[in-house]
């Protein structure tokens, strides 16, 4: 099996889906000739031509709107938001149109669009290139929000998103693009949407997170294993709608739960995870549910020390898990 990077898995999934289904096409800012600012669509323009790899104006509302219209007419658009930070002009299209069309038309119309967007910080990107946007969309029934953590998950979940008959927002952590590498089968496979994945079996502390943080936890878990602390890690993969059964099972497993997100703490995806656990697992809990997240300040700072202060750091992850284990 080939070891490829997270972003190469994105490209591979797009390529395979475009060759499999003539209705799949890609659109976004600089996705064509340039191959995308992160090179996610590299080579697709050359292979599939300008009719299926479309460079758009700098107008996110139009990217989403055109994609939604095309999807309603039976196409399978994959719309790229260059940075998730720029998605908000498209929020009306996504929330009020894409998410609600099936409901409003009593199943007569569906919107099988996939909206890809790089998100996340720690890349020296400052205010407009570092945000986590998932919480804004994570209470809109009708949407699915996928955030993969490994190249294997990227390929399987992106293909599943493109084939899904309803709108999916597919957030890719931009720091993971070239940092995370992993084995990815060359053949065609899909992973189920809405299903969390146990990335590590453990007995002492349950950690539930998603995206790049999965790797921080895996690293911390390796270290803590030597101290005799065994970490159970659940990767949400789909942050909306949440895989409640998996969350409840994972929380019950150890009764000590650490929830992590790179997003601001209050009202984040993990806040909902905490509520699910509180509603279902009271008599299995052996410690208060803990959350490790970014502070509630407006944005990721540009200056390196401040950016570091904002980000959840590996030492913190280790400390939180250790504290819970010792509790």
């Amino acid at each position, binding site marked *: 099996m080939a070891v490829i990077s997270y*972003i190469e898995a994105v490209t591979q999934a797009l390529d395979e889906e475009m060759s499999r289904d003539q209705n799949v096409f890609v659109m976004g800012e600089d996705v064509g000739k340039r191959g995308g600012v*992160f*090179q996610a669509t590299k080579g697709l323009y050359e292979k599939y031509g300008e009719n299926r790899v479309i460079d758009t104006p700098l107008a996110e509302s139009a990217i989403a709107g055109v994609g939604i219209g095309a999807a309603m007419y039976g196409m399978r658009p994959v719309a790229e938001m260059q940075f998730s930070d720029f998605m908000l002009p498209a929020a009306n299209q996504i929330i009020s149109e894409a998410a609600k069309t099936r409901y409003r038309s009593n199943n007569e119309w569906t919107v099988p669009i996939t909206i890809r967007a*790089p998100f996340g910080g720690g*890349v*020296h*990107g400052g205010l407009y*290139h570092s945000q986590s946007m998932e919480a804004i969309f994570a209470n809109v029934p009708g949407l699915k929000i996928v955030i993969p953590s490994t190249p294997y998950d990227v390929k399987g979940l992106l293909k599943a998103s493109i084939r899904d008959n309803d709108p999916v927002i597919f957030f890719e952590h*931009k*720091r993971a*693009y*070239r*940092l995370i590498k992993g084995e990815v089968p060359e053949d065609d496979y899909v992973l189920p949407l809405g299903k969390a994945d146990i990335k590590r079996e453990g*007995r*002492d502390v349950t950690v539930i997170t998603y995206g790049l943080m999965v790797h921080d936890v895996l690293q911390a878990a390796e270290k803590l294993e030597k101290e005799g602390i065994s970490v159970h890690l659940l990767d949400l993969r789909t942050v909306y709608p949440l895989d409640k059964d998996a969350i409840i099972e994972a929380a019950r497993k*150890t*009764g*000590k739960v650490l929830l992590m997100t790179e997003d601001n703490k209050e009202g984040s995806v993990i806040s909902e995870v905490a509520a699910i656990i509180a509603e279902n697992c*009271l*008599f*299995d*809990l*052996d*410690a208060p549910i803990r959350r490790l997240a970014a502070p509630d300040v407006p944005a990721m700072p540009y200056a390196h020390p401040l950016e570091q202060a904002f980000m959840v750091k590996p030492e913190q992850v280790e400390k939180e898990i250790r504290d819970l284990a*010792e*509790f």
Partner: protein
Amino acid sequence: MSVEKMAMPQLGESVTEGTISQWLVAAGDSVNKYDPIAEVTSDKVNAEIPSTFSGVIKELLADEGDTLPVGKPICSIEIEGAQSVVRKPEPSTADGQAADNHSDHDTSMKKRYSPAVLRLAQEHQLDLEKITGSGKYGRITRKDVEGYLAHIPTQAAEKAVTRKAAADHLSMAAQLETAEPAVNRTTAPQNEAGDHIVALTGVRRAIASNLLRSKHEIPHAWTMIEVDVTNLVNYRNQLKNNFLKKEGHKLTYLPFFIKAIVAALKEYPRINSTWAGDRIIEKGSVNISLAVAAEDALYVPVIKHADEQSIKGLALSVDELAAKVRENRLSPEDMQGGTFTVNNTGSFGSIQSQPIINYPQAAILSIESIVKRPVVINNMIAIRDMVNLCMSIDHRVLDGLITGKFLARIKGLLESINSENTPIY
């Protein structure tokens, strides 16, 4: 003079490594700040790396073609005239505070049970006192309980099965079997916000343990009779003003009742007894324990040798004991030796009660309020002063028949009271 290291810079937002395609300097070269020292490529950009310092290149730490992660040193530069500034990382205030909080928090967590621990303890009927906590500040963790259960698997399983059987069949034997340990394994209710916590006084603790013991050990049975005390009421009304003038304290109904009860006890000594496991002991003395309520406690001082006292003497004893309770002057001797308890529940308006036996006595009798009621006498309705006498008995010692006879005797004595047969002195 100091040596600084140049690190692989971040060449783009998603870039985490860079490849040195060409060195533009060699060891020994002098460079100025911002002079390009190497060309670096990533899959996004090609760029020249500017020097961060002015000085002499000391050593190149990577070869051309090497791929290094962002932040990894690529070369060292000797800087002239500069002191090597070693920055000591200051402990951040946040960490300092955390450390302080830690020591503040050093109270025992031994008895702070998590929901998971409480549930497991309840399911397996565990005494958490017996488990050693491995958590912070001695807290018992879920794993501690699970470990404890794993250690005593057969015992725990057997226990669980018996409990279940008991619950399923509700058989008398099973209930009795579980009744005893229930005392110990009761877990204290948790208080909620807004609740007021009342610390236990020694007296309250003693009351609780005595009553609990009595209720758990003694199989209580209960009965009640109705007594027409119109004669008593009339008789006492005749006497009371003179009595107060002469004796200096009130003449209540209570001494009359005690007098009748004591007389009946003398006739039925089995009532005046105690259960002693393998035998019953009929007590030689008749010492009447008298329940006296204080503001937030109940005392049961004893009228010794009540059978040797007149109504006036009993009135005096009652008065004295009541005064001692009020003034908190009761001595341990005042509380000892009771053989039968009388409880004047009528004093606070009760018309019926189910008293708990004063352990280890065999019976307790409560005198309820005297109330005027229409009753049928000789097929005519009359208004009479009526009182209920309620009695709890230790069914191991006493049965319904003897209790009925005893109460009937008291009833007979009370209903026939008059100035002829009931002298005060």
